[in-house]
């Protein structure tokens, strides 16, 4: 849950410190409680500090490091040892001959550390990572050359890692990957290495994704990939289509607000070429080879899990047996899997460790696997039998917004593909959604609602059917970025306990669309809340009479269940955003959270 970058430039290349700092800033979403960088020439120098990247930028002595050709850098999100200057990466051996950055968890670090301490090594930090440079140092002591020492040390490690190292006086970066993402970029003026493409996409779009077990040696004009035995391995060079502009705020105060407003565009991209309106069919080219009849299980975490709940319900409506599971509970729940089962991992980044683990379990049990992801060539995309891209474009804000909407739409398309096809009305409803999201953005009163309830004791969200996952997601957004207490409930569950929490200082957001039996039952629950004097905010299309029982209304166009869940969620995203904004929270980088959770 960290980000690493590396760079080796040609003599006419870009300043290595600039490349590393810019790269880290693009990776800040991966974690940000400390950051650091190292340059290896003329001798290893390390600068690192607790806090956000700006703190590092202020401490790096730019004049001393001017003209550096090679560098590695790191942004850290703590798993071992609290955030502090000493625990920040890079870490070094005792003699300052090597500097190492690491993303992942070294599971056997305690034993390695004990052995090294017994051998007389003094550790500086409490991190698992520091065993790596200290091990490398031991092999250097024994006369190993840098690359050999690096390989011998990596060979000792168990766990997950993307590791990069630089050695005293050498313009070379060595790196290795196991269960943590690592990608190489090949540019005109140097060679790049990073946890994720945005770190160097402004310099080059030619990339090479490393696989588990790969080693790579970066020099200014080449990246040589080898396996654990040192045999050369050929990894294809791909061209990525990411536009670096997508990683800027374009006049919005926060990435989150920008990304909320990007939803119409993201949803158009998600649908493009996938609806054959003249033939009245959904046509998912990504899944042309998938011919599945059996049950479907979704595995996912966080926001993606809420999308998975929605997707499972869409599939059931289309006549497919489908369930959604929390990826982190999937293995311990002993969910029955067989080779008739399709297991669908929903993960924005494609690197979510819990989801990858669940997908691997499923594959081992013989299931067919499908990744629903936003990230081309991510681990999930490469490991699964099939991949459906949601095409939302890069998302920088830690709180997922547009990717959730795109997941909802992609999963609706999946349901029409695996189960009963869409009716004409359903196809039209799908095509209308992007424009209706724009309508919600143009007409929303979410900011006024936020101002009204910014000082509430807690926020509750209720919904039924397709709106239950929306209630969960609305509460999660509120928790993530406002740090306030928020809970989402199935509307019918309120009276089985949570109603005891409801007071006049706990607004209840009720999602109600249409005027069918489901809507009327939710309205019954709204009345229960109203009777306890809690303020009610109805998110509704106005078809039912819920507005009579609501103190405030957040209106959405009348579009039925499918679009209604997408639109209602946009209103709740905006309420959470404005509450957090009024509270002055760090909206794009909420405390304790990271965008892509690559540890289990």
């Amino acid at each position, binding site marked *: 849950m960290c980000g690493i970058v590396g760079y080796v430039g040609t003599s006419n290349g870009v300043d290595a410190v600039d490349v590393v700092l810019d790269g880290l800033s693009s990776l800040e979403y991966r974690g940000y409680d400390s950051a650091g960088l190292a340059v290896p020439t003329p001798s290893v120098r390390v600068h690192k500090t607790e806090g956000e990247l700006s703190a590092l930028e202020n401490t790096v002595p730019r004049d001393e490091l001017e003209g550096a050709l090679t560098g590695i850098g790191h942004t850290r999100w703590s798993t071992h040892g609290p955030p502090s200057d000493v625990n920040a990466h890079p870490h070094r051996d005792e003699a300052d001959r090597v500097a190492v950055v690491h993303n992942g968890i070294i599971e056997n670090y305690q034993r390695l550390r004990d052995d090294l301490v017994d051998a007389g090594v003094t550790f500086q930090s409490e991190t698992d990572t520091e065993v790596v440079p200290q091990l490398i140092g031991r092999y250097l002591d024994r006369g190993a050359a840098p690359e050999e020492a690096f390989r011998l040390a990596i060979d000792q490690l168990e766990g997950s890692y993307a590791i990069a190292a630089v050695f005293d006086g050498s313009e070379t970066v060595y790196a290795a990957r196991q269960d943590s993402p690592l990608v190489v970029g090949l540019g005109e003026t140097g060679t790049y290495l990073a946890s994720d493409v945005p770190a160097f996409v402004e310099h080059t779009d030619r990339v090479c994704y490393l696989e588990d077990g790969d080693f790579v040696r970066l020099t200014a004009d080449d990246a040589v990939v080898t396996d654990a035995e040192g045999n050369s391995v050929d990894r294809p060079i791909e061209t990525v289509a990411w536009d670096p502009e997508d990683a*800027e705020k*374009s*006049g919005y105060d926060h990435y989150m607000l*920008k990304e909320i*407003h*990007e939803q119409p565009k993201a949803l158009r991209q998600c649908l493009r070429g996938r609806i054959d309106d*003249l033939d009245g069919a959904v046509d998912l080219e990504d899944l042309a080879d998938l011919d599945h009849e059996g049950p479907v299980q979704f595995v996912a975490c966080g926001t993606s899990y809420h999308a998975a709940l929605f997707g499972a319900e869409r599939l059931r409506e289309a006549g497919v047996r489908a369930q959604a599971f929390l990826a982190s509970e999937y293995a311990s729940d002993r969910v029955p899997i067989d080779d008739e089962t399709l297991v669908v991992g929903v993960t924005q980044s494609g690197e979510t460790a819990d989801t990858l683990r669940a997908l691997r379990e499923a594959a081992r049990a013989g299931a067919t696997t499908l990744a629903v992801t936003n990230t081309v060539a991510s681990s999930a995309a490469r490991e699964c039998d099939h991949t459906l891209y949601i095409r939302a474009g890069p998302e920088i804000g830690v709180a997922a917004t547009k990717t959730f909407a795109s997941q909802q739409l992609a999963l609706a398309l999946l349901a029409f593909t695996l189960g009963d096809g869409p009716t004409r009305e359903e196809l039209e409803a799908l*095509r209308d959604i*992007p424009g209706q999201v724009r309508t919600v953005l143009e007409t929303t009163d979410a900011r006024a609602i936020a101002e009204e309830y910014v000082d509430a004791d807690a926020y509750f969200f209720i919904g039924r059917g397709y709106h239950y996952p929306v209630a969960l997601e609305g509460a999660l957004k509120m928790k993530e970025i406002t740090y306030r207490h928020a809970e989402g409930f199935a509307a019918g569950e309120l009276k089985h306990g949570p109603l005891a929490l409801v007071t006049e200082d706990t607004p209840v957001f009720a999602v109600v669309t249409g005027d069918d039996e489901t809507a009327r039952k939710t309205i019954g629950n709204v009345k229960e809340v109203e009777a306890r004097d809690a303020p009610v905010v109805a998110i509704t299309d106005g078809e039912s009479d819920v507005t009579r029982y609501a103190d405030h209304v957040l209106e959405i166009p009348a579009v039925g269940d499918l679009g209604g869940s997408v639109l209602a969620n946009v209103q709740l995203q905006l309420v959470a955003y404005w509450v957090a904004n009024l509270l002055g929270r760090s909206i794009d980088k909420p405390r304790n959270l990271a965008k892509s959770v690559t540890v289990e």
Partner: protein
Amino acid sequence: MPISSAVVLAAGEGARLRPLTKHRPKPMLPAATKPILEHVFDALVDADITEITVVVGYGRTHVQSHFGSTYRGASIDYVVQDKQLGSGHALLEAEPEVSGPQLVLNGDQLVEQRLIEDVHEAHDSDSIATLGLVRDGDIANYGGVIFEDDENISEIVERPHDDRSYHLNAGVYAFESEIFDYLRGPEPQFNEYSLVDGIANAIAADETVRGVTSDGFWYDATYPWDLLEVTETLLGNTDGVESTVSTDAQIHESATIVEPVVISTDCVIGPGSVVGPNVALGENVTVGANAVVENSVVDADTRIGANATLIDGVTGHGVQIGAGSTMVGGPGDVRVGDRIHENERLGAVLADRVRDGGGVTYAPGTVVGSDAVITAGTAVSGTVDDETEVQ
């Protein structure tokens, strides 16, 4: 040193284009299918401008979400003008963000690259400002300058009404950074800081203000029906917009496309329909079976029902025209505010999300406000307010 940066003023609503500007600013209205502002950016990029600062205000999220932070390789920075206190005030808002000489343009008027280049080439740092001028035009509704010696401007007047010989100020400027001092003072008129007053201040202080006449294309859409003429002009002009059908659009084999047209991505053109000439369909528009669409600007997500007829029509986003509805085409009398514009070529204007139930007849010159609902079989004429229901 050639100027490489520009400030584009795009903060105003464009009230005379209501009801189309109910939710978005005039620079985001379509000329053919692209927003007017995108044409302005194209002209700037073609004139080798690499840094664009846009002053946004009314409906700014539409601008920001459409363009993001770069456009065709040029960087885009946004400056927010919260209160509409005039064009001079808008430019002052950009002052902290820019340095050195700048080109300055209006984001809601179409200008050809040539006009920008002429100003660019004519400007040198001995003059505090260089103005792009057009010989003919509706000077009484815009700004005029007295340009006696074909080099320096001796007077600048907003909406002149005397019969002296004026050149039209095309709203394309090159400014040295000293202009900001003149924009601030001496006193704002009617609590508005206008760019023209700032230039007049500079002339009064004996600064050199130059002009350059250009035969480059300049066009302003003042009223909703002007969008039809702008689109026709762009489609008919070799330097304008090429007739194109997106490869992502689905066109039934029995549909007839009469060029010139622009059919955008995700559009669906049903069997037996006839689309064109001079039709611009925005993203994700549906033309139903056997519908006829001619000389119209149809914005994104609009659905045109089966057997409907749309001639000289202008629609906003997400309009639903029911089956068999008819817009017979201009000319017609159009009421805007208190004024009647006679014999304008306009079938009807349907603003964002107007819904008709089918079989509706629109009298020429009808203007329907956003979110209005029209019951099936109704005959509509005149002006219909936003969010009303017509039975």
